């Protein structure tokens, strides 16, 4: 075995002859590799990177390009695992990270031409939360004044996020934002009211863009446009990137968008080698602009086409189930005629939702404790993971001693106990905001802030001592019996907290909100006897809140140059309350445990791109499995590159889309399952409604056919 064989084995385990052939292909040449999930394409990619390094290719000249972070994990793991490497570092990028770096680097050469009003000032890149915040600032007066969107029953942050979404779609597809309204109207407007809504969305998009140009703000759409239309076009970045990246690995091309494909295509003109990996049945991120058809165009610039269609994952019955469901829903897949899918399915019908959740926990218990299945090899998925469902599962599994991890990309910081506590104490310490915390908030904050303070005592303290928006001293509890009930030890710690806040209120200094959080954390909450002491989760959450607040402050400090004065701290807390700011935090993904059973929305699991032995599909009667999110201001297909101008989006289109989306999802799930799928079904949903969704219908039809026809389908 040669050295690089060993390296590649380290990356991904033993590979087949077909995989080796691709891994060891000549260092010049561009390969298009497509196939089904579980065929070993990413293993080829990871092994190829190590092969390139092993053959002396400088690491700096290798670019791994992925649509989102989770898809790069096998590469990062492989590179980190190869401790013997001496040399430079391979780059791992997405279109977002790369365009940001390039725009930042070449900003002063392009900002004037790109239409920014202050080209001599630094750019201010906006995270999603900041984009929504500035969207609110830029257009809310307009929305209020002209009564925009008055017929749409969706809250403002969600409306604004759809306007941001429209602008992003325009940027990744490559049409001007001024065409958004016309495109939506021509395909979707069924009446005057609907047409007005799209006109409003158009006006708001243009207003937000003007605001950004006037204040040196770059949301993702503007960042991408500046990168493509100015930085890349100007030549400097092109020369730099083409000069640097001579070897390209693109994984998950079908999940990426046309702007990424444009960039990859440009690099293909100059690189020495490339491996473009394409999953034939995926494209799950369409709602984020993924365009598998656009990805396919990259094939034309490759020298060699290869296919890996033999799956190494599924047992026969699981394969039959996936193919059967796919065919049932109209996908062009061949149903497995010789295999019966029934052995791959385990199910039990329940009348009520909690009984279904309990059944799931019991089945997991049997797998783990009686059949020695590792929790890492089990995943529980549902179309959406509500807090109640997560809690029910987590509780049932914890009682049975089963470790779990949970992925949900949009956990609001204000829902984390440590963040809630800091926000409540901030309101208390800033009475001039006129945002007094409720009694409930104070009870919760005292419990979290003072170690060993239980709910009963926290309520007592709040009822007796929280008056006129201040925490009175413990000595104000008149009855000694009541003091003894609370205990003097807890009372002393309560006093330290109340005194700290009083000193802050009465002092001369008003801290920036992130500094306030840090000072309170440092001086009190993280000290012995208080709730955050030696608590890793509280520290991480507090740091996330500090980072979010600081990012907010930095963005708005910058705005003060342009004569917009704002009370930053108060505005921050307001925006967190409204769910605009700190509504999700990506770092939580990093901090998430790496071991244990995974509970996640189905698409989140798919984008982790790993296979497991057993899957649990919950709420199979829910139409959330096939239905698009309700987004009245945007549309992923109508605003895609392939949508014919002037065509109408019909109800039939919607039905076909539902079937196709569900078919692809089920095919993808089964291709990431080795042994069996447990179906969690209850007649009544979590909210008590009858459930008869498309997934349930498809499974029933498939099983009826097998029952009727035996194996001769």
């Amino acid at each position: 075995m040669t050295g690089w064989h060993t390296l590649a084995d380290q990356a991904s385990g033993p590979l087949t002859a077909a995989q080796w052939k691709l891994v060891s292909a000549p260092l010049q040449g561009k390969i298009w590799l497509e196939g089904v999930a579980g065929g070993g394409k990413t293993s080829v990619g990871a092994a190829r990177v190590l092969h390139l390094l092993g053959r002396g290719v400088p690491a700096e000249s290798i670019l791994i390009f992925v649509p989102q972070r989770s898809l790069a994990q096998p590469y990062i793991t492989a590179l980190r695992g190869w401790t013997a490497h001496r040399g430079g570092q391979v780059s791992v990028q997405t279109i977002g990270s790369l365009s940001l770096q390039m725009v930042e680097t070449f900003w002063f050469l392009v900002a004037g031409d790109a239409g920014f009003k202050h080209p001599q000032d630094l750019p201010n890149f906006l995270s999603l939360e900041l984009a929504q915040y500035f969207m609110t600032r830029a257009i809310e007066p307009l929305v209020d004044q002209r009564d925009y969107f008055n017929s749409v029953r969706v809250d403002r942050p969600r409306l604004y996020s759809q306007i941001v979404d429209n602008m992003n779609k325009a940027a990744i597809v490559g049409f001007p934002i001024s065409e958004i309204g016309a495109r939506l109207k021509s395909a979707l407007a069924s009446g005057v009211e609907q047409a007005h809504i799209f006109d409003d969305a158009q006006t708001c998009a243009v207003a937000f863009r003007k605001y950004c140009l006037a204040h040196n703000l770059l949301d993702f759409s503007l960042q991408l446009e500046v990168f493509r239309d100015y930085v890349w076009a100007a030549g400097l970045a092109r020369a730099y990137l083409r000069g640097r990246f001579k070897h390209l690995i693109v994984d998950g091309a079908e999940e990426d968008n046309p702007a990424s494909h444009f960039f990859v295509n440009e690099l293909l003109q100059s690189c020495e080698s490339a491996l473009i990996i394409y999953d034939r049945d995926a494209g799950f991120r369409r709602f984020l602009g993924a365009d598998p058809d656009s990805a396919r165009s990259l094939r034309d610039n490759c020298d060699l086409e290869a296919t890996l269609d033999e799956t190494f994952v599924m047992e026969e019955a699981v394969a039959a189930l996936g193919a059967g469901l796919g065919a049932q829903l109209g996908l062009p897949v061949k149903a497995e005629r010789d295999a019966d899918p029934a052995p791959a399915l385990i199910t039990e019908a329940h009348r009520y939702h909690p009984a279904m959740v309990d059944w799931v926990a019991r089945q997991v218990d049997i797998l783990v404790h009686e059949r020695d299945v590792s929790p890492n090899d089990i995943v529980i998925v549902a179309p959406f993971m509500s807090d109640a469902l997560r809690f029910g599962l987590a509780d049932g599994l914890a009682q049975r001693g089963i470790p779990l991890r949970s992925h949900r990309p949009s956990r609001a910081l204000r829902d984390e106990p440590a963040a809630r506590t800091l926000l409540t104490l901030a309101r208390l310490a800033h009475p001039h905001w006129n945002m007094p915390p409720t009694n409930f908030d104070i009870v919760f904050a005292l419990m979290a802030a003072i170690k060993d303070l239980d709910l009963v005592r926290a309520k007592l303290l709040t009822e007796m001592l929280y008056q006129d928006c201040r925490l009175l001293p413990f000595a104000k509890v008149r009855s000694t019996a009541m003091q003894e009930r609370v205990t003097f030890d807890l009372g002393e710690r309560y006093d330290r907290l109340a005194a700290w806040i009083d000193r802050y209120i009465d002092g001369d200094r008003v801290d920036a909100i992130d500094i306030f959080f840090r000072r309170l954390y440092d001086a009190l909450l993280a000290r012995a006897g208080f709730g955050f002491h030696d608590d890793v989760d509280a520290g991480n959450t507090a740091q996330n809140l500090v980072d979010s607040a600081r990012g907010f402050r930095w963005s708005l400090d910058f705005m003060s140059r342009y004569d917009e004065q704002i009370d930053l701290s108060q505005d921050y807390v307001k925006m967190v309350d409204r769910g605009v700011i700190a509504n999700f935090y990506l770092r939580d993904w990093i901090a998430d445990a790496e071991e244990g059973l995974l509970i996640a929305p189905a698409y989140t699991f798919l984008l982790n791109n790993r296979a497991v032995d057993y899957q649990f599909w919950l709420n199979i009667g829910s139409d959330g499995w096939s239905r698009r999110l309700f987004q009245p201001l945007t549309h992923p297909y109508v605003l895609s590159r392939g949508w014919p101008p002037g065509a109408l989006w019909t109800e039939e289109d919607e039905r076909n889309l539902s079937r196709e989306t569900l078919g692809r999802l089920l095919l993808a799930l089964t291709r990431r399952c080795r042994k069996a799928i447990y179906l969690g079904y209850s007649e009544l949903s979590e909210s008590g409604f009858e459930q008869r969704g498309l997934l349930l219908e498809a499974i029933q039809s498939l099983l009826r056919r097998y029952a009727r026809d035996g194996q001769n389908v």
Partner: protein
Amino acid sequence: MSLSPDFAFTQGSLQNFADCARRFELRFIRRMRYPALETQDPLQFEKRMRQGARFHKLVQQHLLGVPAEALAASLADDRELAGWWQNYLTRGLSGLPAQRFSEITLQTHLSGRRLVAKYDLLALEPGGSAVIVDWKTGSRLPPQSTLRRRMQTIVYRYVLAQAGAHLYAGESIAPERIRMDYVYVALGAERLSFAYSAAQMGEDEALLSKMITAIDNADEFPLTDDERRCRFCSYRSLCDRGGAGRLEDIELDEYEDEEEEEAFLLDFDQIAEIEF
């Protein structure tokens, strides 16, 4: 808990261990984030750190081909930074070899672990000298003996000798060809230079190997006895080691390197999502 198997040692993590084993444990083994204040004047501290980061970015932009005058136009509102920039332009690059790599990362391995160095600038002439340049924006020139003992001086030279061949026409770089320059742009771009030698490299390797092995085998990570090292440590309250130190007492350059390194390692972990 033990150190993750794929942990990469850097000068920053090793310096943390040298300063306080407990801090190393909290930061890199328990991965405990602890948002306490580093100094009594956090906004001034933050301003200085941002100025330092901005200066590093300016140099990178310049070395990637953005004209100096385009960059200088953006400095009108910060005279201090403009002064650093002028010093850099006047003397920062003088006498350096022509082949230059800015913001480049190299890695080697030692005692079964990865050892990573992120350089501000490498200026090389294949067959000739190999200069490591590290920009410092602090306004105090430390004693040469202090810098010589810093893990940055030890790690950067060692990693270049071990892992820089591909930048040096494929030839390994003899330690005697290597020099490390700390350039103090706030002090007229004054340089403190450290030559290298095979003997020094042998000593450095023994020291680094000993530290890495000690960390890997450690059962306990004791808190430092030297309480002066706690003044600017964010875990101070956890260890009950007093309040935040004064800004004028802090060696800002040390923090600047560490912040930059952490940002880089974080970037590698956190490839930006398409956020919409």
